[in-house]
């Protein structure tokens, strides 16, 4: 006695995604209206958000994968600090940029496999595992070097060139008040981040592994009973997170051009909050990287607005993010309630 559904229904997750995107547009449009005179309307402002957050985009993609399984990875901020420090110190000691990057990616993958092994095979709480990972990476960063190490042109001309390369876009420029044409540009890190985004989007939507992440998050027991290798899937998720985090670390380093112990503190929370604002549930099984991407953009827009204003204290982004998170969690639970209601 079930009613055939004739009308195409959007499920509530799709609606949540639309809300996230709409929120970004509203926020951004608000910024344009309020600070249009200060250049907020320029396309470059948007591109700057991407440039500043390239690393965070990569990290959030990985975080989303882990959160889909119902887990969490709070080691990412510290791992980035370690990556940056290794890059800086390694290149200072004469290593080339490319070998260093390969080393860092390898370290990321191995570190992820280790964390994933503890979570998947030894069934230790992800929070505990990645907290230990966090302490380890921060500690290691300090062991490598306690001072701030800058990456200058002398240390690595290649890396320096990448950091300063401008990829000029053929559209969206403006003429400044001195009459000079300002072409919009992005940095190489942005290209990397967008590639990561596309790859992870495809991975989550169109591959067996991607779908199994959702299955594990939906019900671990069921996934096992349906014949999925849950332990392996979890391990791979953490590996992916740390690996993407290392890619993000390189992007991050291209922005900061330095290694320091206190770098990227709290970045894991930015990643988690972006994912949550993007519609990823902490309980697992629901979410996607497009949402997470917009989550990052929303966070970036808030910072950008506060920066453009110039008078607000720098703690305002935190407060606004907190409010947004709150609003999102309320919206999510309303949807969950509606879904419960409809089920009957």
């Amino acid at each position, binding site marked *: 006695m079930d009613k055939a559904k004739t009308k195409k229904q959007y499920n509530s997750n799709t609606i949540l995604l639309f809300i996230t995107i709409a929120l970004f547009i509203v926020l951004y449009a608000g910024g344009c209206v309020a600070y249009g005179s200060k250049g907020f309307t320029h396309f470059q402002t948007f591109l700057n958000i991407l440039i500043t957050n390239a690393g965070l985009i990569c990290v959030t993609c990985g975080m989303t994968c882990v959160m889909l399984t119902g887990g969490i990875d709070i080691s990412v901020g510290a791992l980035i600090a370690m990556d940056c420090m290794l890059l800086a110190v390694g290149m200072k000691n004469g290593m080339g940029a490319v070998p260093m990057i390969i080393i860092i990616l390898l370290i990321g993958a191995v570190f992820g496999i280790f964390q994933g092994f503890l979570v998947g095979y030894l069934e230790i709480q992800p929070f505990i595992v990645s907290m230990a990972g966090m302490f380890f990476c921060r500690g290691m960063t300090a062991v490598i070097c306690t001072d701030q190490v800058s990456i200058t042109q002398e240390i690595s001309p290649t890396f320096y060139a990448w950091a300063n390369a401008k990829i000029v876009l053929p559209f969206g420029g403006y003429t400044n008040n001195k009459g000079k044409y300002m072409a919009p540009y992005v940095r190489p890190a942005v290209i990397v981040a967008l590639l990561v985004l596309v790859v992870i989007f495809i991975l989550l939507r169109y591959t067996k592994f991607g779908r199994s992440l959702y299955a594990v998050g939906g019900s671990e027991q069921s996934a096992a009973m349906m014949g999925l*290798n849950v332990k392996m899937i979890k391990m791979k998720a953490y590996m992916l997170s740390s690996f993407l985090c290392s890619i993000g670390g390189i992007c991050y380093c291209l922005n900061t051009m330095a290694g320091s112990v206190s770098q990227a503190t709290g970045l894991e929370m930015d990643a988690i909050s972006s994912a949550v604002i993007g519609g990823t549930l902490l309980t697992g099984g629901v979410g996607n990287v497009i949402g997470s991407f917009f989550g990052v953009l929303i966070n970036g827009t808030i910072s950008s607005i506060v920066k453009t204003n110039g008078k607000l204290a720098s703690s305002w982004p935190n407060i606004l993010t907190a409010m947004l998170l709150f609003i999102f969690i309320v919206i999510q639970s309303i949807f969950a309630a509606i879904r419960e209601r409809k089920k009957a």
Partner: protein
Amino acid sequence: MENNVVLRARGISMTFPGVKALDNVQLTLRKGEIHALMGENGAGKSTLIKCLTGINDFEAGEIHIDGINGTIKNHSTRDAQNVGISTVYQEVNLCPNLSVAENLFIGREPLTKLHTIDRKSYNSRSQKIMDELGISVDVTQNLENYSLAIQQMVAIARAVDMECKVLILDEPTSSLDDEEVEKLFKLMRKLKEKGVGILFVTHFLEQVYAVCDRITVLRNGTFVGEYPISELPRVKLVAAMMGKYLNDLESIHKENKDFTNAPMEISAKGLSHTGTVKPFDLDIHKGEVVGVAGLLGSGRSELARAIYGADKANTGTLEVDGKPVKINQPIDAMNKGMGMLPDDRKAEGIIADLSVRENIILALQAKRGMFKLLSRAKQEEIADRYIDLVQIKTASRETLIKQLSGGNQQKVILARWLATDPDFLILDEPTRGIDIGTKSEIQKLIIKLAGEGKSVLFISSEIEEMLRTSNRMIIMRDGEKVGELDRELSQEGVMHAIAGGEG
């Protein structure tokens, strides 16, 4: 191995901490037969199945499967699938957050040339599978949007769609309606013709006699015997399962009382909940048992939920004990002396990591409020009383509920609601998954409660058991109360009314 045997297990023994769940059990499954695995709750049926499929690690015994030399030992459902054993477990094991189609294909998705998932192909194949089963669902919708019965059918469809030599169905019919059961049987017969060996567990004896060729009986973890169906009539089967003779059909007698002058317990006028149940009137007298009949999805449960405040009523009024009451949520109903055993026990009932005792006193504690804790001694006393009353087979009252067999978990939830000692008790499928012996005990219990002046609203897909206990029956169709039957309740009468004849 003889050439018509597809699976043979011998000397299987398995111990859980403190419980010898299986002791030297054997099973022989032949090609193209439907083989019933029977036994009381906790006899070890699911445990045996999980030994076959690699979820349980048995200590002794060997398993042979057709086409493989030597013994096999599976370590996961995946291994079992690889040797051709496809299983529907007792608990529905699917992912609610994935679409119906994904639930059918996850882990074995068709791939495109680029090694990505071929969504189009599996969506259309899924739609075909479900259509062939005669179940109208939109396979691209998430599974959580559908009822338990449909989820069960999806689990079955998934198992059946895999190429398998052995199909294991552990109580697949417990949340199905007659109509779906018939669909399942048709499917099983078709597979049987193709030579698949099917192992079928159920507590509905009629179903055994409707489809099975052979029966293996377990009792308390031991093998009692294997019989062709013709040699084991119903009475003998029950005796083999219980170890004693029981005439389950005749030991129940309800009183035929006239309730017209009895005081009213519940009086609902125009109660409704948008989208699930249309406005209905319902009077229930003290001491009366009222059955609710109707097909799955006819609004049986929803009617009860509207009274109980599980779905807040949008219209209408409700009187309890002659006084108008306002019920916004279940706790209000509980404080007015109601109790309700919900039908979706997994989602709304069992708290897996609490003990049997804690699960039993849960509702009673909620009713008393957080600050009036029941003393430990009192809790133990209540737990022991109900363990005894509904015959829960458990190592101790402190055993975690998840370690109980499926049927015994059901009994714990039933005990939870009995323990609140309600004046008005709603029982939604109280005997689902419960063995034949306990089933008749529960029916007797209902009559006994009514004798004490309590009122019961009894919802069940088994019309017979309602006939045996109810004084009156109401008929639901498409979310609407379409009629009441009081005198001369009969199976045909009720069926006719459900199907749409004059109520």
